[in-house]
């Protein structure tokens, strides 16, 4: 029995040792995959931007950065991520700034979905994307808050467990892509417009009563505190929704919360949910997302509004 236990233990130690070295390599190599939106964002260092846009898919897919740049005569970047909650938004923005980038304005797409990400998104906190940075205190803290101390402990102190658990996200294809230097994001400046998707008769979502999740409000405040420290101007906006969804959900709680936050931090909130284009299904891909025609039109409208609020 003694021999069995010793040999089994030795094997496990050997496995952990070899795989910890492999994890160190992955920590270095995986973030070099600039074909992935997040790592492309983090690949920017020591650059100056007049504005960056943060949020979930309604920021990632519904704004055309080149249009805004042209209309406002500024430089910008879309750092939003599909299906991301406010924790993601905070971590992405802070890491982006700590990479030495200078930003004058942060434009945040905010709505009932971002204020209750767990209720709205399938995977609201993209923990696996931040694993290469788990040793950074605020990232580790966010992981601990969302996933609990046990998982955090394993991911931090038994490094190989990180990529073993998320092997379907970081597969061989991902690793292979990390050796390529070309990235489509350079052209779109981080946006992904729905070019090939037009409105279809999609199913209306069931009506809900929306609230504000404590974790989302916490990270929204962290984001705003951070921008205040960095003297970055913040503008909130809410992207258009198809007119049939207007007043459909019960949004009293998030509406009131947003009003209070805007008052507390003196932030302008541009609400585009009732634009004229919202009446026209020609501009929509589904209830919450514009198609390419809608996005290009909305980007022009957004630019006109931003012209009044951007810090130059």
């Amino acid at each position, binding site marked *: *029995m003694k*021999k*069995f236990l010793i*040999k*089994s233990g030795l*094997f496990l130690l*050997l*496995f952990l040792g*070899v*795989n910890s070295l492999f994890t160190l390599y992955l920590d270095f190599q995986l973030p070099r995959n600039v074909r992935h939106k997040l790592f492309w964002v983090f690949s920017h260092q020591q650059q100056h931007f007049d504005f960056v846009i943060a949020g979930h898919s309604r920021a990632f897919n519904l704004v055309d950065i080149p249009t805004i740049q042209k209309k406002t005569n500024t430089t910008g970047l879309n750092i939003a991520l599909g299906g991301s909650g406010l924790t993601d938004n905070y971590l992405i923005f802070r890491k982006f700034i700590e990479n030495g980038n200078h930003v004058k304005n942060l434009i945040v797409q905010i709505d009932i979905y971002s204020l209750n990400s767990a209720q709205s998104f399938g995977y609201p906190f993209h923990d696996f994307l931040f694993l290469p940075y788990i040793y950074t205190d605020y990232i580790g803290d966010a992981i601990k808050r969302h996933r609990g101390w046990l998982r955090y402990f394993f991911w931090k102190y038994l490094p190989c467990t990180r*990529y*073993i*658990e998320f*092997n*379907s996200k970081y*597969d*061989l*294809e991902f690793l292979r892509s990390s050796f390529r230097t070309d990235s489509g994001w350079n052209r779109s400046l981080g946006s992904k417009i729905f070019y090939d998707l037009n409105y279809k008769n999609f199913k209306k979502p069931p009506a809900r009563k929306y609230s504000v999740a404590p974790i989302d409000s916490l990270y929204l405040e962290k984001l705003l505190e951070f921008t205040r420290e960095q003297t970055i101007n913040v503008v909130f906006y809410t992207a258009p929704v198809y007119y049939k969804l207007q007043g459909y959900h019960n949004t009293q709680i998030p509406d009131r919360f947003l009003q209070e936050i805007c008052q507390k931090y003196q932030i302008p909130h541009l609400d585009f949910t009732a634009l004229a284009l919202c009446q026209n299904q020609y501009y929509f891909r589904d209830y919450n997302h514009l198609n390419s025609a809608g996005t290009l039109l909305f980007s022009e409208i957004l630019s006109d509004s931003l012209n009044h609020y951007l810090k130059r």
Partner: protein
Amino acid sequence: MLFNSLEFAIFLPLVFIAYWFIFHKNLTIQNLFILFSSYLFYGWWDWRFLSLIFVSSLTDYLIGIQLAKTVAPPKRKRLLLISLGVNLGLLACFKYFNFFIESLVDLFTTAGITLNVKSLQIILPVGISFYTFQTLSYTIDIYRNKLKPTHDFIAFFAFVSFFPQLVAGPIERAKNLLPQFQRPRSFHYEQAADGLRQMLWGLFKKIVVADTCAVAVEYIFNKPATLSGGILLVGVTLFAFQIYGDFSGYSDIAIGAARLLGFDLMRNFAFPYFSRDIAEFWRRWHISLSTWFRDYLFIPLGGSRGTRQQRIRNILITFTVSGFWHGANWTFLIWGFLNGLYYVPLMLLNRQKKHTAIVAQNRIFPTPGELVQMLLTFLITLVAWIFFRASSLQEAWIYLNGLFSKSICLIPLAEIKSIQYPLLKGCFFCLILVIVEWFQRRQQHGLQINHLNGVVRWVIYLIIFTITLYSANYHDPQEFIYFQF
């Protein structure tokens, strides 16, 4: 609890430690601990169905004792019928009830009569086909005076519910497994170490080979009408490896886990895809079920004796019932019947035992003739697998039509663009599996590599362990296919 889940990775070491360090001094307590662990293992899935295992165990335990006390043949027969009634009744109720009802309704509908009978919402209890057959064989063996009943209540209940093989076999015979519960067990390094190796190989087959193939198989079997014949051929080939990796992987993990606890379970797979004819295939595939049907159905029907018609009947009945055992669907019946049809010519020519030893016994590579025989056997099993995998006869027919079309030699990449990566990965791991098992075909499992240098061995273990862990799905582990049977 699934073998490929995190829960089992915690459960097994805890059981191992408690079993050898805390409960090792008293056999009854050790068996009681196995019983408790097995019920916990099963109850993790759904504790309500523990009552079925309990009823099946209690029935056969009591009937076994009564059978030994009874001499009068009619009374003995009555006791046997009670056991058959209870066990097959459980199966009929939980597994086949809806099938019978739906088939009856279909039959009447064809005759123009509308029956207003509704099927029930019944959950199929995991492993019911396995443990009912295991307890049945115990009673039948006592009835045939081939086995003496046990009076050790705990040992018998632990034998029926033994967690490594409870939900998907091997279907053990009381003659082999029960005595192991009745004698003290001691720890043997070689047995335990080999058990671990076999578990590792089983996990590799399940997680790396079967689950990788499953992605492409799912895609291809979901739309056979729109794909070329060549792709359908790739799909069914991958399914052949998926089902083999899944089920033989399970058996390897079960046998390995049992060996860690000092038990030797029967072999369930012996490299079946290296068979040179269908008879050899069935001696190497799901051995515990094939031998069960041989001993308790084929031989009582008359076996290979009698007239030509009787022998054909016996074979076809045995294979068809064996197909039906797998699931309550016409597809399984056809699958079983088809395998019976493959078998008949061999039996009539008295060539069913032509190949008993492993292929190329004393050579590295097979002869061209052996290679052709193996390929032909594999190809005819592929046709049968289509029925096994398809959800209905109609779907199987569409698949067969697409497969045997002019496009059988075409693999248009555009049709598989979205699954290119898992498909290539699946093919690659299938190739690795075939190569390893070819060179290991004289051994019990793919990782019995004691003849290699220690360092080389450890490097191989490390690579396989790493690949397996990096391939597993921790958020939504794939169930074993045979759980549904």
